[in-house]
């Protein structure tokens, strides 16, 4: 067992653990706003798994494609999170902007 193999295994398990934590969080939390927070550990998990493939395979075809997947997820997930949050607010309040009767404390500087 080489050092490269050990590092790849360690990275893949860190990545899988992060994704599984996000999956469990989805069941525990009920609201869409709360659930949206769990996209971040999942993105990090995909990046760890992609990194483990690169560590094992170096920059081969598989390594490069796993980097491409990580980049797609890294760029796509925040987009989905932001769009979901926006739609959730529109469905709840009719507009995504702060409503007049909404009680939110804003600190003036």
């Amino acid at each position, binding site marked *: 067992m080489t050092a490269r193999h050990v590092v790849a295994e360690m990275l893949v398990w860190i990545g899988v653990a992060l994704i599984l934590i996000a999956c469990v969080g989805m069941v525990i939390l009920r609201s869409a706003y709360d659930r*949206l927070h769990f996209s971040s550990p999942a993105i990090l998990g*995909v990046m760890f798994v992609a990194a483990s493939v690169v560590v094992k395979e170096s920059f081969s075809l598989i390594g490069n494609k796993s980097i491409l997947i990580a980049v797609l997820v890294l760029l796509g997930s925040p987009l989905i999170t932001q769009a979901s949050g926006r739609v959730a607010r529109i469905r709840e309040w009719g507009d995504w902007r702060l409503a007049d009767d909404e009680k939110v404390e804003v600190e003036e500087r």
Partner: protein
Amino acid sequence: MSFWLAASLALVCGMVPCLIAATRGDELDGLPALSLAGVCAITALITLTEAFHRQPFIDLGVVLAALSLGGSLAFIRFMGRDR
């Protein structure tokens, strides 16, 4: 069993809570769970590629990553238009 295959199995099992979460509540509450299930599937395809040394699996992962993004955005668009 290699650790890649074990990781794939763990990720496929991770899709079960996502499925449960997606079926509870309204469609907007289920959307984050749906997109996380997509992430699980993409990552499982990466690890399956390494487990079986079959390159086509990672091609599926690339296609799924692109389609999952497009599909989720289309879903969100229709939900916004619904009101």
